[in-house]
């Protein structure tokens, strides 16, 4: 268990460094820029330099801040990300915690992060931070519903909440293909709602740097700020990994039941490559969203959830249940 913990910590650090570099590079290419180019070949050492800079910075605390909560908030966010990541199935048997309520556990843990955001906003004693934190709270609580319902749409097919069982059940084909129309709708809703849940653009109302300077982490500096940053990227990875596991088969290779030869060729690619490939594809999609769409206003954000995503996903889950009862899925 201790080894697993250390492994997750290392994974966390690597993820942070790699994803920050990827984000900066990908955003640059979307905007006809080059991105970091100076530190190392193609700027590859840029994030390492950034980490060193953040480590050496002064951890400044606001004079009127609630010091205990102020210091606690980044850790709450980090811990929630760690707890959620522990249940991810990376490959066959490579899973730290395989609960029989895995999906429920992950969605519960990833929503603990909002407590950290609220704490950060409240303890900073800054109106921008508080507004940002309140927005984040409203947003995450709203979008949690759609994420949960779109995941449940697939759980209707699998009949299990256990992540390893869900992956095993996709040996003959991923659910996004086998569940056809309702699964595709659920996947779309999941992508939108999970982008909102991780507080990323176009749903980064909690940060909204043009109106709230930086939202809930305005007053943070140095490594505490880096924790928020790291947690954002870790949450993005977790959400993408859940999406990959539930809709795109997790570590399961791409199988078509009729072609045995093709399936064997696909089996030669190791499961961990499949898992990280699918996850990075979804992360890329989320980055694509972020660097294409303009930020939503808070009322538009809640309209999108309560008037569009939630009714559609409710109808969709009914449709999926009907399909599943009639046996019309593959």
């Amino acid at each position, binding site marked *: 268990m201790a080894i697993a913990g250390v492994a997750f910590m290392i994974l966390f650090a690597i993820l942070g460094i790699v994803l920050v570099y990827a984000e900066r590079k*990908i955003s640059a*290419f979307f905007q*006809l*820029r*080059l991105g970091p180019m100076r530190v190392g070949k193609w700027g590859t050492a840029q994030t390492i330099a950034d980490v060193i800079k953040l480590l050496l910075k002064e951890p400044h605390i606001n004079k009127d801040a609630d010091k205990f909560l102020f210091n606690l908030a980044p850790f709450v966010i980090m811990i929630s990300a760690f707890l959620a990541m522990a249940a991810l199935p990376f490959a066959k048997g490579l899973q730290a915690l395989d609960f029989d309520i895995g999906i429920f556990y992950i969605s519960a843990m990833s929503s603990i992060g909002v407590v950290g955001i609220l704490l950060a906003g409240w303890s900073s004693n800054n109106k921008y931070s508080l507004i940002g934190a309140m927005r984040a709270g409203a947003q995450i609580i709203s979008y949690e519903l759609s994420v949960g319902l779109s995941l449940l749409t697939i759980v209707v097919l699998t009949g299990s909440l256990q992540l390893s069982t869900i992956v095993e059940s996709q040996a003959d084909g991923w659910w996004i293909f086998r569940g056809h129309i309702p699964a595709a709708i659920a996947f779309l809703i999941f992508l939108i709602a999970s982008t909102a849940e991780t507080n990323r653009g176009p749903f980064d109302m909690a940060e909204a740097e043009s109106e709230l300077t930086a939202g809930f982490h305005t007053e943070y500096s140095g490594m505490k700020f880096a924790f928020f940053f790291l947690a954002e990227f870790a949450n993005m990875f977790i959400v993408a990994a859940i999406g990959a596991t539930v809709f795109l088969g997790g570590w399961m290779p791409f199988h078509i039941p009729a072609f045995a030869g093709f399936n064997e060729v696909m089996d030669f690619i190791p499961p961990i490559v499949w898992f990280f490939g699918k996850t990075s594809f979804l992360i890329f999609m989320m980055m*694509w969203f972020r660097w*294409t769409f303009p930020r939503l206003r808070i009322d538009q954000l809640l309209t999108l959830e309560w008037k569009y995503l939630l009714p559609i996903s409710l109808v969709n889950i009914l449709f999926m249940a009907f399909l599943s009862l009639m046996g019309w899925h593959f």
Partner: protein
Amino acid sequence: MKSFITYLKQIFWGLRSLVKGMSVTGYYFTHPKEIITQQYPENRESLKMFDRFRGEVVLLHDENNEHKCTGCSACEVACPNGTIEIISKRIDVEGRKVKAIDQFVYHLQMCTMCGLCIPACPTDAIVMANTFEHAVFDRSKLTKILNNPGSKIMDGIK
């Protein structure tokens, strides 16, 4: 029923516009040739600045070391911050005393590159050059005399 159709239409048009936007950025992502960033110190040899870039004022000289400046001081008047200083002299041309420039002094440290002196010149003697690496270690080097030593005015320019 009608409102339900409007609802579906809204979803359809919303998704369509989102896909449209993503296709634009997707095109940029897959076409690195479109990147407009220039790697400045590396591409110094091949760097070509733009025609309308305003770097510094130069007085044009032709191959006979002749310029078109009559010393009328119109640029000096047009300059909002006293960057240009025309020191003129009187020279003999066919028995008459005619005004001509002795020194065209240009204080680069005061110039805001506004370019107002260029249209003010009645004989198009001065232009804005594209050069921009003006950093020097001594402030006095920024005060330049634009007319070459021994240069004179072109024939027929009044």
